[in-house]
């Protein structure tokens, strides 16, 4: 499955002019408020018609201005979780959830009502009308409704924004399983870089209606030049690893080109490839291999580049085996440690700093 | 100024007379006699009332709203049996006419037989002829005599009973015959001054209606005049 989008559209003063490819997996649209994310998703869903361009899903043309083609939304079979909910007020939760089921082709498989209710914690609400739901409950129903329509692809516009972290922690693994087990492609809009880092196979950066960067999540999110756009606090590197073994004390050992990592248990069998995100600000640089510290992971690295940020911070890009890490340090430390490209160092990472939410199978 | 309340069926003739009379400031309000009578009862600014039947004039007079001594029977009329355009039936009016047979499932158009004067007279005439019972189920009652006439003129009803005055004015229908005046109560259009509206102008207009000039116009429209008047 692969989605290919290349469209332009004028709405008021705002010009959308976006082209990107979304290969298998989860493609995240990342961009600030008003940058055009929802507009793109609406075009893919067929709810707005671009002025010009082409949208294809797995070779099938959904829209093509040159040929005057516009497949109606109902025949695109894209499950859309809207930014603004849009539950049917006259149906109860169960009826909302199962609305799309009747239109799904008989061959289509997917989760059933019970499992969706379970996963989203909706079982006790099935007889309620949307008017009697809390904000987060509504959003969960919207997610379930899209899932249950057995779509070929999911379009999710900030689906988890109104949910607490506990609930998010339940839904995220489910989306991962969808991505991995069923191969259901997802176009995912979110403001949350951790969420995106965990889920996304591909990241598309949007700014003022234009695509300013697109590519595998690992590359985009590890690109120091992207740091500006997504915010210093969220900078980090995503590293492909492989599960080595699980230890008795609840830690899992992963291996990658740069060495080994100890992480809280990951529920994947040995040999499973796993993507790990290491935030730049979770990496401490040390001139010597540290002793007697609670941080379990120490990796030998070489400084690749140093990039000044605003204020007192710098981003150091580090070569670690074949992979790259980012570290956020102060200029004062850089001076004190006399950092410069080529300098060999140790990167100290607390095992727990690579938190569950930052681990994505991939 | 004079305000005249007149039965709607008088419109053609009366408009003509007002014009010919040369009397300025005469306005005529045409409506059903029942509506006009009730309005006079409720203080309408009518000065002259011309009803299409005696019942409503009686009603107004009983309410004490008629200027004493001004009521007169102005006009009379006849009932006509008419046929739709293109019809070639010949049906002499009489006790042995086969009205139902000629209708042949079609409708006999009349005004409301229990409420509107033309309908009441028509029903009386048919009853007197012994025809009512057989023809009753075929009767289509219109809310006024003009509507009944229209049903026949449009060919929706093959036959109808209307005033002779209506038949005269509608070229599309063919008069099969006039009902004998003895078959139904006299069809009289009484006129009177309304109490409180008794001005010289009103009186003059009422008098004018009986002049020869006025009568000529009434006559041209198919009206006749009460016994004893030419």
């Amino acid at each position: 499955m692969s989605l290919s989008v290349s469209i332009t559209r004028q709405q008021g003063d705002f010009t959308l002019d976006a082209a990107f490819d979304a290969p298998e997996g989860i493609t995240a649209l990342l961009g600030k408020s008003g940058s055009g994310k929802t507009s793109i998703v609406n075009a893919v869903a067929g709810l707005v018609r671009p002025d010009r361009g082409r949208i294809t899903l797995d070779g099938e043309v959904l829209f093509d201005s040159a040929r005057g083609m516009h497949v109606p939304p109902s025949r695109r079979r894209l499950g859309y979780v809207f930014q603004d909910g849009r539950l049917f007020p006259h149906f109860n939760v169960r009826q909302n959830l199962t609305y799309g089921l009747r239109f799904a082709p008989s061959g289509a498989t997917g989760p059933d009502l019970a499992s969706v209710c379970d996963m989203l914690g909706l079982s006790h609400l099935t007889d309620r009308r949307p008017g009697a739901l809390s904000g987060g409950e509504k959003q969960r129903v919207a997610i379930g409704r899209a899932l249950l329509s057995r779509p070929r692809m999911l379009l999710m516009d900030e689906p988890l924004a109104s949910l607490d972290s506990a609930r998010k922690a339940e839904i995220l693994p489910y989306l991962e399983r969808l991505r991995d087990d069923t191969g259901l492609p997802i176009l995912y809009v979110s403001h949350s870089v951790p969420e995106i880092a965990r889920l996304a196979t591909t990241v598309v950066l949007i700014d003022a209606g234009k695509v300013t960067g697109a590519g595998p999540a690992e590359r985009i999110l590890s690109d120091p030049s992207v740091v500006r756009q997504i915010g210093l606090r969220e900078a980090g590197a995503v590293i492909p690893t492989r599960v080595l073994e699980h230890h008795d004390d609840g830690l899992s050992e992963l291996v990658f080109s740069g060495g080994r990592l100890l992480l809280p248990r990951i529920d994947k069998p040995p040999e499973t490839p796993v993507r790990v995100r290491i935030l730049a600000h979770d990496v401490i640089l040390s001139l010597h291999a540290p002793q007697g510290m609670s941080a379990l992971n120490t990796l030998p690295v070489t400084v690749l580049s140093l990039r000044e940020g605003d204020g007192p911070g710098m981003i150091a890009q580090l070569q670690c085996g074949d992979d790259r890490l980012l570290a956020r340090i102060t200029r004062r430390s850089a001076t004190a440690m006399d950092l410069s490209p080529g300098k060999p160092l140790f990167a100290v990472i607390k095992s727990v700093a690579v938190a569950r939410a930052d681990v994505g199978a991939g | 100024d004079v305000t005249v309340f007149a039965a709607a069926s008088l419109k053609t003739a009366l408009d003509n007379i007002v014009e010919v009379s040369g009397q300025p400031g005469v306005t005529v309000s045409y409506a059903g006699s029942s509506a006009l009578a009730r309005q006079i009862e409720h203080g309408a600014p009518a000065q002259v009332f011309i009803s299409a039947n005696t019942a409503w004039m009686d009603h107004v007079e009983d309410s004490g709203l008629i200027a004493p001594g001004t009521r007169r029977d102005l006009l009379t009329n006849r009932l006509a049996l008419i046929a739709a355009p293109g019809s070639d039936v010949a049906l002499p009016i009489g006790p042995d006419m086969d009205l139902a047979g000629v209708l042949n499932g079609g409708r006999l158009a009349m005004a409301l037989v229990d409420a509107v004067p033309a309908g009441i007279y028509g029903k009386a005439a048919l009853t007197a002829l012994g025809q009512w019972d057989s023809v009753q189920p075929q009767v289509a009652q219109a809310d006024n005599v003009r509507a009944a006439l229209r049903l026949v003129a449009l060919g929706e009803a093959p036959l109808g009973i209307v005033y002779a005055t209506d038949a005269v004015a509608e070229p599309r229908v063919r008069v099969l015959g006039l009902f004998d005046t003895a078959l139904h109560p006299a069809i009289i259009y009484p006129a009177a001054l309304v109490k409180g509206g008794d001005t010289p102008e009103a009186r003059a207009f009422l008098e004018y209606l009986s002049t020869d000039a006025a009568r000529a116009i009434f006559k041209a429209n198919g009206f006749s005049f009460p016994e004893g008047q030419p």
Partner: protein
Amino acid sequence: MTDWLSPTEWQAVALSLKVSLWATLVSLPLGVLVAFALARWEFRGRQLLNGLVHLPLILPPVVTGYLLLIVFGRQGPIGAWLDQLFGVTLAFRWTGAVLAAAIMAFPLMVRAIRLAIEAVDPRLEQAAETLGASRAWVFATVTLPLILPGVIAGSVLAFAKAMGEFGATITFVSNIPGQTQTLPSAIYTFLQVPGGEASALRLVLVSVAVAMLALLASELLARRAMRRVSGT
């Protein structure tokens, strides 16, 4: 109460109910369609259709009745055609009374439904579409339930209007007791004779009672529908 009204009067009551119900039911689907077209579709002749729908409201009823007679009478173009092809006669039949009542009530029905359609949030319909529902399904499962209060309001308005319709009905189908004599015709008849007011009043009361019941029922229905729509 059976004594209170004469058999003919009972007939008139029954006929008015029958005519009004049929008029409402028959015009409902078309009313919804036309309201939808006026609210949502852009097409040449939209304003013309809108005007046409409103015509019976603008014209004096007698004129409408007269036009009906010309068009749907036995000699009328459509009337003759209906008669030949289907053996359906409207003139002087209760079916004609239904047509007259339906046409007179149509603008009211369409206006109410149209207003309801225009109040539907199109984003909900879009949501249904993305879930795979075709336009027709969206209409049946989302639009229609959401406009139900408006449809009910429009229908009751139409029913009430049909119960009171007089001018067009009597002009088009006359006043044939048991066949086309509706309640208003009966009332009118009484009002034409001096002293008939009391009898008219009795029928007016019946008419009011029937319509009030219909109104009450519709209020309850509409409230239910409204509660559904508000989502609680």
